[in-house]
């Protein structure tokens, strides 16, 4: 690409090559990747839901509510694909038992602890929260593209492709919101 990364004026993902998996090692098997994606969707769901509650304007509240509803649907898609892959061997402790994570801690993309993000968001303006949300979505797209490449099985690939497309739509909505005068 001409000019390399410095010429790229689009959005960038950040974090190590294993797409956040370094924070949650070892997430290498497909089932572990699905579990990791579920946990990150859960974190995003809770983050957006809380942001929706905190917004005073109806349009802002509605934007975050709709985003949180979508992330909830993504969790359902991921759980279904996990169940289909494992059948009777499905672990009732999914997803945390697959990743040896502490119970009671929710995470966002890049290994950010949800409670820390919620605490940070307390004193922030809407623009800063939208900026942070954009970074979550870019990293989610990055994660799903990598999972799509790594995972075996057509159905799982299709689910990850659909999820990355849906996160792209979130990104469009958030970047449009950033340009709006609230």
């Amino acid at each position, binding site marked *: 690409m001409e000019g390399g*990364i410095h010429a790229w004026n689009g959005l960038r*993902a950040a974090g190590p*090559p294993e797409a956040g998996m370094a924070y949650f090692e070892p997430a290498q098997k497909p089932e572990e990747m699905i579990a990791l994606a579920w946990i990150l969707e859960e974190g995003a769901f809770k983050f957006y839901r809380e942001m929706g509650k905190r917004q005073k304007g109806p349009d802002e509240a509605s934007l975050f509510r709709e985003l949180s509803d979508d992330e909830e649907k993504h969790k359902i898609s991921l759980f279904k694909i996990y169940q289909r892959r494992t059948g009777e061997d499905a672990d009732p402790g999914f997803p945390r038992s697959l990743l040896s994570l502490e119970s009671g801690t929710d995470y966002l993309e890049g290994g950010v602890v949800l409670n820390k993000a919620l605490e940070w968001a307390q004193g922030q303006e809407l623009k800063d929260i939208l900026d942070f949300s954009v970074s979550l979505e*870019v990293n989610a797209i990055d994660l799903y593209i990598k999972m*799509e490449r790594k995972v075996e099985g057509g159905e799982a690939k299709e689910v990850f*492709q659909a999820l990355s497309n849906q996160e792209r739509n979130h990104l469009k909505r958030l970047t449009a919101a950033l340009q709006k005068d609230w």
Partner: protein
Amino acid sequence: MGIMDYFKPVDTWSPDKVRQFLNEESAQDYNLVDVRTPKEYEQGHLPGAQLIPVGELESRLKELDRTKPTITY
């Protein structure tokens, strides 16, 4: 790899052309490779890019699907 492989023409795409390509194609249909250092990659990379530092390219070429177009930066 034969000597003539060193002389194969390589297109240089503009960032706009890369953006258009990535938006139109499925991630399954191309290799997107970041050849910089792991630290640079961590600081920011194109969504979906695979990290293969330039010094490791030769030994890790098998990780790329040679039937698909490859974009590097």
